[in-house]
């Protein structure tokens, strides 16, 4: 099955990973199943429960990606402990006796879900970005602004091979798998293997990513055996390790005798290390210089997300949500003060006449603003933007470096034979014109000449022939 990250069907299919988007940053990954694979005992089959209601997978499967799905009424309460245990026990018995056939029979018995009004979600096809947002955190995550820049700087393109050491949560793994597609990134988890392997299989990336588990400081990057293993022939390396300088000795053009270099001998190797502390980066760079890496540079990526809002200020905003009740101009402030003053005066006068028999209590305060505006609420106020409340102000220092391809005396000699150094045929400053262009110019010159001749010979002749000539030229050029 092709990975849903790379090629997807038009519809959300059974057994495919789907990302259920509740809100911008709330995404729940789930694998769509037409049966209750975790055996949770819902009548509707597999159900994903969210803050906005329950979503039986039968309402998700077969929908076009991007569909808005309404929550269903799912009986979460009555599958209480005792009952579900009993159900499970029954099912276990059933499974013990009859296996496949029983499953088949069970499917139609699933209850059809009834829609509820508790909320909705959108079922999205997986992308590395959405996955990064949703992924179960294991270690520090490499977020989109960082990995997008890293992959771009590492020149990772279809067909490349990437080594990733310290796969952590796997966000970079997914993004680089997408970038290389028919090459593969190699992933080295230095610590515990964690759940990455299973995850990659679930996502259909196991043909693209080869996950290995080892201590790269000691054992390097060869596939299989650390000493005699096959070279992955990497074009790009990403090290998300606590001490990247210890791993650099395994990324050289001339490894110890008997070993292969882990790098692709026929292309430059691009390297990036990802370290949160300056000391780590400094030490890495010092080692890089010793090991002949070139174009060493260090950057940090600062990313911000912006919230867009309409800020409404004015005394006419009473009762409007999110608006600030405050004068919007000096004139409005003056008018408000004036009207307050008048009212105060009215009250004072009213009070002084309290004892008189014809005293009447003053009417309730009239609203300061009476006129209604035609502008709909969504377009009122000034459009503003500000950074989102929580910023990631530092992720890590990214150190980039390049190691040119291997180049021997022999290679150089071959090149010199093929391209003799002293050979110069054209002076370099002659303008380079293509044959076609030259032809066209010659044709135009010819046409002009003929035109002149014609003009001098007989005036009334129309220029039909020239036109034909020009058309012919155009044909030629388009044919080319």
């Amino acid at each position: 099955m092709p990975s849903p990250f790379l090629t997807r069907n038009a519809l959300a299919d059974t057994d495919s990973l789907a990302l259920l988007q509740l809100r911008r940053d709330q995404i729940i990954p789930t694998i769509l199943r037409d049966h209750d694979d975790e055996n949770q005992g819902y009548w509707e089959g597999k159900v994903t429960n969210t803050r906005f209601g329950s979503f039986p997978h039968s309402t998700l499967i077969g929908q076009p990606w991007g569909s808005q799905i309404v929550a269903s009424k799912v009986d979460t309460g009555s599958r209480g402990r005792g009952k579900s245990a009993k159900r499970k026990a029954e099912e276990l018995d059933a499974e013990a006796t009859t296996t496949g056939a029983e499953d088949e029979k069970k499917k139609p018995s699933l209850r059809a879900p009834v829609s509820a009004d508790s909320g909705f979600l959108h079922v999205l096809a997986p992308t590395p970005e959405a996955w990064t947002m949703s992924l179960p955190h294991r270690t520090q995550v490499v977020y989109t602004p960082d990995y997008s820049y890293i992959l771009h700087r590492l020149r990772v393109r279809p067909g490349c091979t990437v080594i990733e050491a310290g796969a952590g949560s796997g966000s970079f793994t997914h993004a680089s798998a997408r970038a290389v597609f028919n090459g593969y990134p190699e992933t080295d988890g230095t610590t515990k293997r964690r759940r990455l392997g299973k995850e990659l299989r679930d996502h259909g990336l196991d043909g693209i990513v080869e996950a290995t588990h080892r201590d790269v400081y000691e054992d390097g990057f060869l596939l299989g055996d650390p000493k005699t293993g096959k070279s992955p022939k990497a074009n790009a390396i990403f090290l998300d390790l606590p001490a990247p300088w210890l791993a650099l000795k395994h990324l050289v053009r001339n490894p110890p005798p008997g070993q292969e270099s882990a790098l692709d001998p026929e292309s430059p190797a691009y390297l990036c290390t990802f370290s949160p502390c300056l000391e780590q980066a400094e030490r890495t760079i010092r080692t890089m210089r010793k090991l002949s890496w070139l174009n060493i540079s260090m950057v940090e990526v600062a990313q911000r997300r912006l919230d867009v809002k309409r800020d409404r200020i004015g005394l006419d905003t009473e009762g409007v949500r999110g608006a600030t009740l405050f004068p919007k101009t000096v004139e409005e402030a003056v008018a408000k003060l004036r009207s307050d003053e008048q009212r105060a005066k009215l009250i004072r006068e009213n009070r002084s006449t309290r004892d008189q028999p014809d005293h009447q209590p003053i009417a309730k305060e009239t609203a300061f603003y009476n006129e209604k505006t035609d502008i709909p609420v969504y377009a009122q106020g000034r459009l503003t933007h500000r950074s989102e409340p929580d910023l990631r102000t530092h992720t890590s220092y990214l150190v980039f470096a390049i190691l040119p391809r291997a180049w021997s005396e022999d290679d150089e000699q071959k090149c010199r034979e093929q391209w003799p150094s002293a050979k110069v045929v054209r002076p370099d400053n002659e303008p380079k014109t293509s044959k076609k262009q030259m032809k066209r110019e010659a044709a135009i010159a010819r046409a002009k000449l003929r035109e002149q001749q014609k003009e001098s010979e007989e005036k009334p002749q129309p220029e039909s022939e020239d036109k034909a000539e020009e058309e012919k030229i155009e044909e030629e050029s388009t044919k080319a």
Partner: protein
Amino acid sequence: MHSYIRPGQFVAIRLQSDQLRLIQIIPDTVVNLGRFGSFTANQIIGRPFYFTFEILDACDEAGNQLRVVSATELHAETLLADGEGDGEGDDVETGENGIPMRTNRQINDENSSQKLTLEEIEELKREAGGAGKDIVAKLLESHSAIDQKTAFSLAKYTLRKRKKYLKRFTVLPLDVGLLANYLIEERDAQKSMELRDEHIGLIGCWGNVHHSGNIEVGEGMKPHGRYAIVDETGGLVVAAMAERMGILYPHDADEDPTEEQDVPASNAAESQPTDGPQKSRRIRPQPMSATTNTITVIHPYSQPNLSLLKFFGYDTNNPDESHPLHTHLKSISWMQLADPNSDPLYANEPPIIPAEELAELKQSKRTAYYHKRNRWTRVKAVVDEGRAGNFDGLIVSTLLEPASVLKTMVPLLAGSAPVVVYSPTVESLVELADMYSTARRTAFINKKRELESQSSEGEAVDLSSLHEEFVVDPTILLPPTLQTSRVRPWQVLPGRTHPLMTGRGGAEGYLFHGVRVFPTTQNIQAAGNVRKRRKMETTSTPISDRDVEMTS
């Protein structure tokens, strides 16, 4: 992958002054680097990228005039500039507090310290060999106040002089990242909309642009990897996306320099005879004929401006048929997309001439006929395909109003397809984000429902007033997100690590992105208000329940 310098290829040459030059490497010519000297192109053809060459004063008997500067040598310099080269690392005299003792207190702010006169330096330049190394050494020697300099300022001084006099250059592969930097640093940045590396990366990732694989389009699947791009950067965005899709570089497959015997492809296309009898015609790939892994460019004028693609061997005026972009890059004008029948190329089908009649025609007429037929079929196919939509992503970097682009394009996207809009400045994108605000979405849904309830059964609902009020349909794009990113470069030297002191200003660059969704036709009631509020109290989640506010 860029493994070696190919003949006919564009490369970037970085000079000692940090200047970048884009040069096409044509065999048997001389490459001139101005005051840094010149060399014959054959000396670098076939050689690896990222090598630094030094131009020697005299060539050897075979005519070689270039010397490869080894990495150790390059770094020896860097380390010298660090003030710690050649084991002088701890040379900086420090006082009790570890502060460098030599300071710039005694340094006079005048030009008298350098004892060599201008004439003498000119003389040196004429005489001195060693590619400028001698000049730098002499300059250092005759600087009267050299011992007053701190190690830091000495390093700076050496570096400055080195940049001026050393005849070295580095050959870099011309890829999208480098081209973007070149356009910003050396050219008019406005023309490429000041698009920086970090944004190119972000656009590609949020746009989910990738190679679509070689999987057969099976049942229930649609052709994948079809991206719509609106690009007014002269082709930079198209090139960046093509790079991600693996269709930018013509030579990605063959890597061995010794086996490469081809004439450069561009020359091959030119030298092909364009007329005369050609019986054994090879089947030429029809332009824009690919069905998967394609880019469709939508352009405002009759031709798209993709001039930057020439650096990658694809000239739109004189396309090279072997280049992958020839088949994978399609272009439609906005008019063809919105109103194809106004376009004569699309609407006027050239009449079909029967075969026997055709055989009697003159050769040129016949070619013209085939040319016109082919062009019409191509335009028709591309336009129809574009109008049918189902694109896998939309990438926009345009001078047009973004809302007007999205109004037309978002309905043409497949479900879950991402939309990315880049703009150098924030204002247009803030407006765009507001077009998709929750308040507007709610108002849109309410109005739509109102109109629907007014119309009688079975009758088509007149939604024109709705589309008048709302430029874009705010219900088919979620979640509207606006972001920006900037990379900060650092200087890393022992004891002197800090962010670079100066950098480039200009436009910050912003990205708007969202995903194409399909709203449900069901009437969604309030999202469980009571329960929600109770939940709020127990959990500490923020209260900005944007999507839930969609009540009716």
